[in-house]
């Protein structure tokens, strides 16, 4: 059993399940749940702004970090970039803590936070390098995004943005074109299977308008021309502690457990205009599945769909070509069995 690849075990479980429940429309719906096609989850969580008065951005990103970690993505699969150290800011009346709520219920800067890129390490260059994997050889594994073509990646960004850019620190910015190109490189280098892009900043919609790579689902806290607003102040700290969109998104995530059947479709409806004041904007055209049939935990958790089967299964001549059920639409559907797959050239050859 140990010699058998993991993927095939899952596939067999799935096959076994089909034989039990398969009938008509129901079968279609059920199939959707199991067609996510990913085997691992990654998260890139970025706070791009520094300074004490931007406390809320740090709280935003640390809160999302806490949620995805709770839903099962391990630290080794989370790249956390935090541009300023609020916990140690001398202005912080509660040293060594970061809170995301006025009553200081949850310290999101607890003992088990692993910040991968901090302070001035949070630059556009480092961010793009992490996404595309072009890091210096000396970079430790914990600071790399080691995803593959079976990875579902969550990218969360927060900071100060404008129409077509997101400011990093106080000196530079990443443009929406650069970001779209970075995602395209990821796609060509098979660094993701599906990607969920979530951004909370002013005019956030502009950041995903230029995306052109497949399998990206994107949500932004505001339309072009709109500001994203903060949610509330903690009068004891004297700063705004969280942004509106992130606050309501977290509120939704708090009700999600690893086994939850909540879908991305529900998540995308979070924070209607009367709550956010800005209009939450969604881009679904690049995404090939119906978000209403995609589990939230496909991106926010790291949940394998495991069903225990009590019957003994005899495995014979198991090989990947035969289990087409595990392939995703873009993967091996209809393809000939013996085709050799190869990675794309890192630098395209001149024509």
């Amino acid at each position, binding site marked *: 059993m140990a010699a058998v690849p993991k993927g095939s075990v899952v596939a067999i479980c799935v096959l076994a399940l089909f034989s039990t429940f398969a009938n008509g429309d129901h079968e279609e719906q059920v199939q959707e749940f199991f067609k996510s096609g990913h085997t691992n989850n990654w998260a890139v969580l970025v706070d791009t702004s520094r300074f*004490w008065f931007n406390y809320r951005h740090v709280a935003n990103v640390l809160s999302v970090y806490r949620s995805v970690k709770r839903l099962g993505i391990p630290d080794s699969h989370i790249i956390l970039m935090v541009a300023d150290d609020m916990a140690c800011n*001398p202005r*912080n*009346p509660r040293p060594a803590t970061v809170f995301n709520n006025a009553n200081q219920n949850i310290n999101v800067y607890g003992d088990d936070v692993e910040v991968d890129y901090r302070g001035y390490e949070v630059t556009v260059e480092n961010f793009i390098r992490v996404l595309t994997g072009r890091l210096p050889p000396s970079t430790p594994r914990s600071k790399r995004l080691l995803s593959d073509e079976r990875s579902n990646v969550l990218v969360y960004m927060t900071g100060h943005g404008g129409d077509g850019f997101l400011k990093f620190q106080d000196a530079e910015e990443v443009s929406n074109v650069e970001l779209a190109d970075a995602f395209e490189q990821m796609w060509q280098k098979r660094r993701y299977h599906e990607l969920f892009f979530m951004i909370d900043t002013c005019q956030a919609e502009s950041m995903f308008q230029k995306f052109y790579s497949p399998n990206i689902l994107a949500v932004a806290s505001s339309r072009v021309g709109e500001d994203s607003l903060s949610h509330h*102040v903690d*009068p004891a*700290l*004297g*700063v705004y502690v969280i942004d509106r969109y992130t606050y309501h998104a977290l509120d939704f995530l708090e009700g999600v457990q690893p086994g939850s059947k909540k879908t991305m479709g529900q998540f995308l409806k979070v924070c209607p205009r009367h709550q956010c004041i800005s209009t939450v904007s969604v881009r679904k055209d690049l995404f090939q599945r119906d978000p209403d049939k995609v589990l939230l935990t496909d991106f926010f958790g790291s949940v394998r769909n495991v069903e225990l089967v009590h019957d003994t299964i005899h495995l014979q001549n198991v090989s990947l070509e035969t289990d087409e059920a595990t392939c995703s639409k873009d993967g091996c559907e209809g393809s000939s069995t013996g085709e050799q797959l190869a990675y794309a050239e890192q630098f395209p050859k001149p024509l």
Partner: protein
Amino acid sequence: MGLLTDPKQRQWLVRSILRYQSKLSVLLYVGGLLWFLALAYRPLNAGTYFSENALLPGLVESNLPQGFSSLQSFASSLKEEMKKDKERVPKDWIFQQFQDLGLDTYRQNFTLKYPFRMSTYAKELQLFRGENIYAILRARRAASTEALVMAAPLRSASNSKGRTDGGIALMLGLADQFRRNPYWAKDVIFLLSEMDEVGVLAWLDAYHESKSPYVFADDLPGRSGPIQAAINLEIPQDKVRYLNLKVEGLNGQLPNLDLFNLAVRLGRREHVHGDHHDPETWEGFQHMLGTMLNMMWTQASGAPSGSHGLFHRYHIEALTLEGVRLSKGMRAYSLEQLARVVEGIFRSLNNLLERFHQSFFFYLLPSTDRYVSIGLYMPPFGLMAVAALALWIMATSPQEPEDEKEREEKQLGEKETEGGEPGKKETKGGELGEKETETKKKEDSSGSGDPHNDSHSEKKKSLADQENAPQDLAVDDGDSDDDDGLELGETMRIFLSVAPVVTMSFLLGLMTYTAPHLFSKFEPSRSVSVFDVVTYGMMAVFTASLTYPYLLYRKADPDSEILINWHLLKCIGLLVQGLMLFAISLINISLAFFIAATSLPVMMAVYATKSWLSKGLQLVALLIVSPLGLLVMAACVTVIQKNTDDSWLFSPLAAMDEVKNLLFLLLVDQHLFASWTFLVVSLAYFPAWLLFWAIPFCQF
């Protein structure tokens, strides 16, 4: 003037301006004045707002304990200490308190050498010794690279300026609270200064290692980082009816508007606000105009309205919170309430990441929540000043040949551009040299044929043109067909006729500037105080200056008698006046406004006349707007302001005392704090005014 513009196209404009010039200049002046005053009307000014988002004003809740018993105990013990000796401040006690709180507490001695000799006996009597106390609260988790200052003057119980013991108790109470908190990113320096501004000056000098000629400060035993902001407290212990925010600093400098907004916002949060909301009504407008003029009045003097004014010299934003003590009235603010305001201000300042740089540095305040920015007040002021500058030149030509008008138009353009960027020319004493270089250039240009039609070379000769044109006009009165040589001689002669007047007036200005120093050198007799010596001496200088036009004529040889061309004289006078006004307006708009509003109508109206009545009236009007006249007017206004409660009774004696007082304050400020109001008045305004003074005496 662009090369591509055809001046002939605008001839109709020039002609119509010429026809209505006098009406137009009146219209411009009146329009400018009314527009300026109308800026106090709510829809014409703007609401204040925060530009600096690092301040986070008022977001944090007060950390002070309910009741704040330590503040109460500090206040009552200080009261006890003050009672022991009404003439002295319990400095040792205060020092001890700060030390007991565990702060780095230091003393600094300084010596003030009085700029004027006070007594015949000994030089030592001119020296006054003072002592500052300051305590530094070190920020626990930061590197002492930035600091904030909370200051209060040390005043004894018998001090006439009003007591500040409430402010000192408040500092002690806040120091006690501040040191318990971990959130300080900047050191807080508690500064208690003797002799109000002088002590602050000494301390700031020592802190920044600079020197003043009359205040000798000891080195500081302890220091912190660059100071980002300072709040000065002049708060009595009880019966504080409202808070007065004093912003006007030395030479009319103002703190960043964000700091003012911050103080207002936090005052509002604690329900401490002196100003009510002014509605869009006539009464509302009157109140706002009153507030704005009041602020301008204080700013125009160039003297700091509180100790905060000296911080501005070092680019430290500072203002004074003055608790106004009135015995009547029901409501009074408790020290605890005021402590919360000050605490809030310091919490916000603690959030600052860089110096104040976002909001306005040049503004006028018609109310606490409205402001008039430099962009709003400059156009009406420019209109007033340009009325004098531009239009006069056209008035000088009784009949105009074709090319004459072109030239005038060029001058108009040049005058206006000159008015637009007066910052380039500092009018301090450079005037004489300027005039002389202009003479040389003029000679060059008039010798080289007819440069005026050559539009390409005109820019280089713009200065020469300015000088030339009015003289040419005078020549053209006779016959425009004169040949060049004759024209040159005539031009020279006319210019020479004016040169002595201009030179004299500027020399007299220089004399006035140096006079106080000279007078103070005289040994004063025992019966006459130095105040009187200087005041009467200045008046004597002024009176002597008034006779100079008469002297000029007496000295002239009857055969080669030169007739002074008063048109040219007036033209030069208006130029000097306009330049000066624009230069001042960029730094101290209030001073420029008051000078312009009073002097310009008289100066525009002055002309040479043979009628004794008209001459007399002109001279009286000129005397009123003379520097001394303005000083007397200012003194009267001050006396009336002080006597608001006991009706309109006005005593000339009080006004006389006030004149002495104001003059002396000007001189003392000039020496101690390097205030330049006296310098500007004596070296720029007085000479300009003297030029006009000569005009009614001109013969023609």
